[in-house]
């Protein structure tokens, strides 16, 4: 067994520099044109730019096309069960504050089977980035209705079109208790995606990023309108928000100065149906973080543990 070797938290000799290749987990096996590729390279670039040691990189996912994500990143990956990425991630972080935690989850994985964990993950607010890949469909299982499939959109389980109004993940998250960071971006704008994910990475707490993700294979036309007419999108700007590059500003002429500290305004923006707001909707840097609580007692010395243990036994001694 490898256990029992001396623990060493500061093994960093010699100085290392990480390139994009340092995070390359091998050929990604998504369909040509899949939006997941864009997210993958954005994350790899952030890791490079932040110089995250690969061994400190923890990527957790559920099941789905998007949940294949960890396999394509060089680091420690946890490709778990459908819908269960968030509890695993919270547990992983509970005693490992040193790990950089990213979660990849799909609209079905997070909002359908994982919905209960999703709501509670917001409450826990542990420090991680949650990337919600929303392609409006179940991809891996070949085109069944997902909670975010538009009404009337034909799928294999609803050939005559989905019946229920599509779930709005952003409005839902803004209703959850203790949500501390909610942003939205689109896979087809790498600049905005990068800046959004990077802002999420720098937020202390759970950063939810709702990513509109193209699935050319099953919902190729889903975002045609948004992509064809950038005016259907409204760019949220603010000094505390997602920094907007030149290119982004050029493309999205509709902008709104939105203070991410204002929850009511965030809910209002999220509820709009005329235009789709992208950028940072809400951020509360002061929301309590469960992971600050869970690390208590970390690294207590064995001798102290044994002493405390004897004291516990004393309570039951006769």
């Amino acid at each position, binding site marked *: *067994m*490898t*256990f*029992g*070797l001396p*623990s*060493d*938290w500061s*093994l960093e000799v010699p100085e290392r520099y990480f390139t994009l290749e340092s995070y390359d*987990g091998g050929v990604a096996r998504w369909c040509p044109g899949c939006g997941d590729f864009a997210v993958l390279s954005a994350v790899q670039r952030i890791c490079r730019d932040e110089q995250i*040691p*690969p*061994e*400190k990189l923890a990527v*957790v996912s559920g099941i789905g096309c998007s949940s294949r994500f960890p*396999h394509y990143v*060089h*680091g*420690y*990956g*946890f*490709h*778990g*069960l459908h819908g*269960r990425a968030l*509890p*695993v*991630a*919270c*547990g*992983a*972080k*509970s*005693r*490992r504050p*040193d*790990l950089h935690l990213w979660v990849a989850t799909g609209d079905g994985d997070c909002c359908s089977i994982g919905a*209960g*964990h999703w*709501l*509670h993950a917001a409450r826990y607010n542990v420090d991680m980035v949650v990337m919600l890949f929303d392609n409006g469909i179940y991809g891996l299982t070949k085109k069944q209705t997902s909670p975010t499939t538009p009404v009337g959109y034909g799928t294999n389980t609803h050939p005559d079109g989905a019946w229920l109004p599509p779930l709005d993940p952003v409005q839902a998250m803004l209703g959850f208790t203790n949500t501390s960071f909610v942003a939205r971006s689109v896979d087809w704008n790498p600049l905005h995606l990068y800046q959004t994910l990077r802002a999420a990475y720098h937020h202390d707490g759970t950063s939810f990023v709702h990513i509109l993700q193209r699935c050319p294979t099953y919902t190729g036309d889903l975002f045609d309108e948004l992509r064809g007419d950038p005016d259907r999108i409204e760019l949220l700007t603010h000094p505390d928000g997602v920094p907007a590059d030149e290119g982004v500003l050029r493309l999205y002429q509709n902008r709104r100065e939105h203070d991410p500290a204002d929850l009511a305004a965030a809910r209002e923006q999220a509820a709009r149906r005329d235009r789709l707001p992208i950028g940072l909707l809400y951020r509360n840097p002061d929301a309590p973080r469960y992971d600050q609580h*869970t*690390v*208590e*007692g*970390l*690294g*207590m010395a*064995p*001798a*102290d*543990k*044994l002493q*405390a*243990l004897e004291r*516990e*036994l004393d309570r*039951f*001694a*006769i």
Partner: protein
Amino acid sequence: MTVADTVAAGGPASAVPRESVTERIVEIVSDSGEGAQKAGQSFGTVCAKMGNGVWTVEIIPAEIKPPARSPAGASGIRVRFASRPVTNMGDQADLVVAFNEQVLYGRIASGAYRPGTVVLLESKWAEDGQEEIRRQYATAVAELRAQGLEVLELPMETACREVVPDPRVGKNMFVLGMLCQIFGRDLDKALAEVQAAFARKGEQVVATNRQLVRHGFAFAAARIPLAWDVPSMAGAEPLVVMNGNQAAGLGILAAGIEVVAMYPITPATSVSHYLGRAFARVGGHLHQAEDEIAAIGYAIGASWAGKTACTITSGPGLALKTEFLGFAVMAEIPLVVLVVQRGGPATGLPTKVEQGDLLASLFGQPGDAPKVVLAPATIEECFHFVVLARRLAEELRGPVLVLSDANLATGVSPFPRPRPDAAWLAPPIDQAAWPEGLLPYDWDATTGLSPRPVPGQRGGEHVVTGLAHTRKGKVAYDPHSNQEGCTMRSRKLASLAATLRPPQVYGTPEGELLVVGWGSTVGAIQEAVDRLRQEGHPVSSLHLRFLSPMEPGLEEIFSRFRQVLTVEINYSDAPDAPGIPPQTRRRAQLAQLLREQTLVDVDCVSSVPGQPLAPGGIADRLRHRLPTAEPGESA
């Protein structure tokens, strides 16, 4: 003059000589909230301190606050103490103190008393304001006597009033005093208990309660013509006294486990109640998750990222963990799963005893999910098996299930104080660089074992997945990879089995009947065996602690007995039931495993009463399967 007569006659204790006996079973029953349990626990502790073997078990009503004076509402405690170690709650009680007559009906229904059981009954109801109650009381006393119980009516509350205005709070300590007198207990020890129990509530409260104890002591001396002594046993090694859930909780501390994730469920929850207070003192983190799936997911996440974590549950929660348990097997994540069994199926009997989760633990997962399954047989083992489980989980790189039950969870008994060892504690998380070229699943071809790279180990980067995978942890759908992975995971159990020794037979190594059991029934079964052997029956017993893999040598052991049967608290079709041909008879769970493995015609004596097994009950059910004993053997 018999106990019956003296009791009927009443009179002072001095009226009878103090009789020395090897054991006694005492109950205190009341409406809930009358403190019977506190009194019983204190009495049990006093007995333990005086060197008796003790087993106390609480009597818990179905509802949280049942109406007063209702048979279903019986709340209280049983204390069994003896001149030898006590491992179970025993048969019928010798003495019962009752605060009202109605609650006795509930106990009688569950067979707690016998003709001759002495009942010390609160007599105030005879003069109750309500005619209805007076009538109920009179009828009950008559019925109890008709059933042969020795009823002694006592004005306990009136007596308490001499010390406190409201006897409802306080009479329990009065009863503690009474019991100390009846059983010749050291009054100072009892007073010390009171001191400890009420210290937090201030001097005044302590004083009053000590006063009540003394008063009850005197009252008994003057009014109760009973005097027994249960001599202590030899050996004065330091002891601790607790229930099986507290023992498991302490085991978690002693194993150096740092993360426990659970979701509340009876009867497992009290482990987390203990951890809620104690875990932080050893630097541990208790996580109450949003549900059982999240709980095991959180524990698996914590194990994956560092030290082996633990999740705790009972039947319905175990059902919800089914999928993640399969994942832990597939991805080879160390995990300790404590299952405190209750009555099933479904929500079943939440507070009751059953050993019904054995097959679900072994076979619950779709596909093949080999895992270690242990079953502690005693409260002491609840402590040590958790320590063992943590080590096995790491060495075998997978989940280890520890099957306790409601009987161990609620039974309180003393056992030798463990001597915690630094070696029991989980080693620190290995963060050294991962050996160059070593694969994340470097399975040893024979043992299936492999070292595990932990996040933070430079060079060990890989992905764990619930999909079929290669030694590199890469997803693979080819026939070879899947066959190899399944083989390696199964091989691990074989390599553990190879290290196990055959279990010890209790009694002679050969004979007419071998009784096989597992889990919390060991004490009751062995007592039953003792009695049958005293009657001259060549009966022995065998108790299994490893259920997966099983301890070796069973065929050989079985071959030395003419009959082999299991005694279990789970369901089996009665052999003589209508329309149950032997081929399709559904047998008890361990019996099924033993038959499959040994091809020996292992029978079973099992039932699902929701109660722990009593030695007498077991002996009765076994006796009629035995040829009448030759007198000679009884020596």
